[in-house]
């Protein structure tokens, strides 16, 4: 049987998610054995054209060139999977979406005229059909391996959708909000990090984006009751998944609508 052809593509991102694959030191060689890695510039000089069986996409779309490039990648790829917050929600760089992007460019570049960028940094799914999304900033290496394993076995990958809280309890972390009054996005954030931050005595900052049916209004109301300002709460939602609809809407509700419901 021919091995599935794997390609890894990068758009606007930090490289961390594709590094997760190279960081799977124990499985890396067996992954490389089970698949043909035919396009993965960070790891190999082998650069074959499509079609690809599995394409991993890192990064968001933020330039006209990338907007065109992703279309070709989609045409070339049978199973297209986005990896990480940039690709699934637009990434930290989507913070510019609401802002004056020309002003943003001027703040960083002396003569921004050279740089051709779109006003918005958007997730891959805004441009092409995505077959599977792996969340996280960065993604969880074990989830990535599980997905690859599932694809090899012809299964639907299993990645849990529960909140961070469940993982805190499974690993025996005491709730930092209740016991210490530390603000935490855990109750509304999807698991995947194994409830990392609370185990390091800090509040979850939402790397894996909103959990399904997350009740943000209730959590942010509680945070306000505990003394946080709307600006501070909104700020806590404006991280790597700021453009994920649930976080984005709640942040806007707090700031633009002064907390009034839509």
């Amino acid at each position: 049987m021919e091995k599935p052809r794997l390609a890894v593509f990068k758009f606007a991102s930090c490289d961390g998610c594709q590094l997760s694959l190279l960081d799977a030191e124990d499985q890396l060689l067996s992954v490389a054995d089970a698949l043909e890695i035919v396009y993965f510039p960070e790891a190999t000089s082998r650069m074959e054209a499509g079609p690809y069986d599995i394409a991993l996409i890192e990064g968001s779309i933020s330039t006209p060139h990338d907007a065109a490039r992703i279309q070709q990648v989609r045409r070339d790829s049978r199973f297209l999977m986005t990896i990480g917050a940039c690709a699934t929600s637009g990434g930290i760089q989507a913070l510019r979406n609401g802002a004056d992007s020309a002003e943003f460019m001027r703040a960083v570049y002396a003569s921004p005229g050279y740089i051709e960028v779109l006003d918005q940094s958007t997730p891959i799914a805004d441009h092409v059909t995505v077959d599977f999304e792996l969340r996280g900033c960065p993604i969880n290496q074990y989830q990535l391996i599980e997905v690859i394993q599932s694809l090899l076995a012809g299964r639907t990958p299993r990645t849990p959708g529960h909140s961070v809280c469940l993982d805190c309890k499974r690993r025996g972390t005491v709730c930092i909000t209740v016991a210490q009054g530390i603000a935490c996005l855990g109750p509304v954030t999807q698991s995947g990090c194994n409830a990392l931050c609370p185990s390091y005595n800090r509040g979850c900052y939402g790397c894996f984006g909103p959990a399904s049916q997350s009740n943000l209004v209730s959590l942010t109301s509680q945070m306000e009751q505990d003394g946080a300002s709307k600006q501070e709460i909104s700020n806590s939602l404006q991280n790597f998944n700021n453009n994920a609809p649930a976080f984005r809407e709640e942040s806007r509700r707090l700031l633009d609508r002064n907390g009034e419901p839509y």
Partner: protein
Amino acid sequence: MEIQQLQEIMQQLRFTSDLSAGEQQQLAAISRFEDFSRNETVFTEGTEHPNLYIILSGRVEICMTIPARGCLPVLTLEEGDLLGWSSLLKQGEMTATVVAVEQTRVIAIDAAALAQVCEQDHDIGYQIMRRMSLALSQRLVASRLQVLDMYAVSDEAHTLKQGGTHE
């Protein structure tokens, strides 16, 4: 002779069995037996039709026409089922085409006469309409169930996008 025979049968049919003898007789007076051979059309969608039917034996199918797909059967009716309510309710043209799937014997009731009977005697009219409502409500429930496609293979396309599909 035929009226008597009709009346006897009406005592058995679920549509008419618990009507009073007088009412059954009134109904029998405006009814007659009719037979359709296999593949014979009972009435056609878009036409006006004088009769209402109760099926005694055999089977008919209700078909509706979709261009390029032809006349598609949506429901089959058999013994005891009511057919052709449009003619009684004076809704104008028939809403479907009905064809006998096999040799079928029906009681054909003159719709205009039945309407008149109901009009003149609201007691019997109430009885007839109540039964018809029941039959139609069952038909309606059945149609809903059909629409819901109960047996559709609900593929376990399980949360392909993390969290995404549940929102």
